[in-house]
């Protein structure tokens, strides 16, 4: 943060008395520009050039690994990904009584089938979700439900995993910040899960979550007598996301703890001593001193983790494959398996915009703290 303040003030000064800039000042300004140039060129080459290329490709129907001619298709790829249509489902009435029919097995009211109601031209809308609103039944249709699902999965994954990581990471950071024997080795050991390559740890967890007693979790649950038959964690929708969040929390909590620990170590001891003398308890100290002082470090940690989680790919790809997508693994599927490079680029652009929005709102929050 200190660096940023310097940067701000050094920029403000010349702007303040620009007219009176000496020769020396001008020379220095030119020198500064020259020094910045290499960095700018690298940024343009490695960040903006590919980005512009992805933007361009997203408006074409380019096929991956093929010599076929590509043509410009405008916003077609985006329309396919993002078109959503909400419509009301009429209740199905009994012809004689005029009452709504009820499913005799489940006791649920019967409505029209979304398949018959959703538009099919120019592109077919597939059923995404149904919901009730003021006693009426509505259906949300989307032209690419896989993508909308991917967005939803990614957002749920991001919010839940980052939140849990923040809480656990803070607790761990507080523990390893206090003085005890073997603190050094404890801090090192804590980092082990983070050091494991994600694909390797995903495979490892895949085995631990195996749908038979070969898997550690099923063996444990079986030993405890909690389950009758093994649970297929990675097969059914309800367990899939929770399993992935567990893997991610296991893996990246140490990283979170490390960043927060760095924040904790910059806090001067004497404030706590003063608080102690003034009679503030440990809990009061935590909420009144530690937490506010930790905010900047926390914000940095949150930015890193959130942006990282939004582009989650490896654990989705390794553990779930084509059965459930994240945004990035759907992008991979469209690019590699379907060879639809235009559409894949459009997905890339949408991920970019989402991450951009998150980044700017986080940085805004961080900036507001400093005023």
């Amino acid at each position, binding site marked *: 943060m200190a660096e940023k303040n310097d940067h701000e003030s050094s920029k403000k000064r010349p702007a303040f008395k620009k007219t009176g800039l000496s020769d020396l000042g001008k020379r220095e300004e030119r020198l500064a520009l020259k020094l910045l140039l290499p960095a700018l060129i690298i*940024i343009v080459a490695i960040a903006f050039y590919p980005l512009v290329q992805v933007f361009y490709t*997203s408006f074409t129907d380019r096929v991956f690994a093929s010599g076929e001619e590509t043509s410009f298709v405008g916003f077609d790829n985006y329309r396919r990904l993002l078109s959503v249509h909400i419509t009301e489902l009429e209740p199905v009435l009994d012809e004689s009584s005029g009452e709504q029919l009820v499913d005799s097995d489940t006791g649920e009211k019967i409505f029209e089938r979304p398949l018959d109601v959703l538009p099919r031209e120019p592109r077919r809308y597939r059923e995404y979700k149904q919901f009730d609103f003021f006693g009426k039944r509505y259906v949300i249709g989307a032209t690419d439900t896989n993508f909308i699902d991917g967005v939803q999965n990614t957002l749920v994954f991001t919010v839940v995993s980052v939140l849990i990581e923040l809480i656990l990471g803070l607790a761990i950071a507080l523990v390893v910040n206090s003085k005890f024997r073997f603190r050094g080795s404890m801090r090192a050991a804590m980092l082990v899960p983070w050091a494991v390559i994600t694909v390797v740890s995903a495979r490892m967890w895949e085995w631990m979550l195996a*749908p038979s007693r070969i898997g550690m979790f099923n063996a444990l649950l079986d030993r405890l007598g909690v389950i009758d038959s093994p649970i297929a964690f990675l097969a059914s929708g309800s367990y899939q996301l929770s399993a992935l969040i567990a893997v991610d929390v296991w893996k990246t909590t140490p990283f979170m703890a490390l960043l927060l620990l760095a924040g904790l170590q910059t806090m001067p001891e004497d404030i706590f001593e003063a608080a102690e003398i003034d009679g503030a308890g440990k809990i009061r100290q935590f909420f009144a001193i530690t937490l506010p002082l930790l905010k900047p470090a926390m914000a940095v940690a949150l930015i890193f983790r959130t942006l990282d989680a939004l*582009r989650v790919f490896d654990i989705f790809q390794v553990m779930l494959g084509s059965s459930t997508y994240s945004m990035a693994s759907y992008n991979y599927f469209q690019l590699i398996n379907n060879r639809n490079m235009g559409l894949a680029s459009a997905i890339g652009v949408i991920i970019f915009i989402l991450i951009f929005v998150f980044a700017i709102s986080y940085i805004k929050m961080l900036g507001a703290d400093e005023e």
Partner: protein
Amino acid sequence: MLKSKWLFGFALLLAAIMLMSAGCGEPEEIVDEPEPDEPEIVDPDEVVITVAAGAVGMELELTRDLAEMYSEANDGVTVDVLDTPDMADDRLGLYLQFFEARSPEVDVYQIDVIWPGDLAEHFVDLYEYGADAVADDHFPAIIENNTVDGRLVGIPWFTDAGLLYYRTDLLEKYELDVPETWDDLEEAAQIIQDGEREENPDFWGFVWQGNAYEGLTCDALEWIASNDGGEIISPDGVITINNENAIEIVDQAAGWVGTISPEGVTTMAEEDSRAVWHAGNAAFMRNWPYAYATSLEEGSAVADVFDVSPLPAGRSGSGAATLGGWQLAVSTYSENPEIAADVALFMASHDGQKYRAVEGTFNPTIMDLYDDDEVLEAAPFFDTLYDVFINAVARPSTVTAPQYAAVSELFYNAVHDVLTGQTNAADAFEILELDLEELTGFPSE
């Protein structure tokens, strides 16, 4: 003012860097730089040919043996083997990255029977490198499959068809016959499972490939074809999937999940189901012929107590097996296409295929080898199941090229949704029919 600009720029940069490391649509980044000069430092005349090959079961070991044989017999040529992912979808992904970069790093590719149509532009015509002398020895149907616009893009290496593996000891113990229909199989699997569970709580009746991937397309096509339900899309381009017989058998298969097959079967690929079988924890298994040799290996719990038969029948009265199998193709980006073609033809030659058949029970594509005594001794079922291999059902890859991958994804995801109980087959196939119409533009029945 100044600050918000700075913020904006920083956020933009951050997002851009994040996006790039997610690897979105940026071909130049994906593939490692080829290193064509490296071998020349060692020996200026040494040519290195790299073969990208599978590693399922004993595949990799046998390919390495053949590579060594070729290297020994030909001075100045070294054949390297690159092992590739087990799942066909993942393997295709790796290959496409080489093609997009026009990389000369791999010279010979092992390609699936469903790929020649899609990938033809990246392979040389083997007829120009001497394949015309041997083409007639192979099964004509596979040669035809591998011929695109008159060019032979791959030399057949081994063929595959789904088989039913069963435990001879358990059928004897419970006085059951080898199941001939899916209903028989269901019944037998239930009886054996109930009996064995008393001692072995991990025992299951029937394991197969139910994960959402190409393997499920193969398994489900077998159910449907054996029940007279067509082949998803007929060879003349009509979508046939939405019919009563197909719906009936897929609903029946969904009933196996959690009863005679573990819940986790919907996450299993070939090697996952083989692991259950190998440990002696299953009475029946659907798998490819490669599992025959691996089931005989040391450490296998089923070594002397299993056999294979054709898959059970449904309404059609006879079982159906999906045609699988792999070909060797030579990359047009290879720096030594002539030597690479020679390596491919050597590996797929009479002797090369015989070696793989004897050592690893990989089905030859050369017809003569099905009369060879040594081959038949190693794999007696080659003789008895010859008809199965000859009559295997092809997936609709030719008629839907170059969109087969998308067709298959729609199909296996629809079946997977039925298997995991999210929907029923009637609804799933009604929607699948509309999806296929939109994708391929073909009419439906």
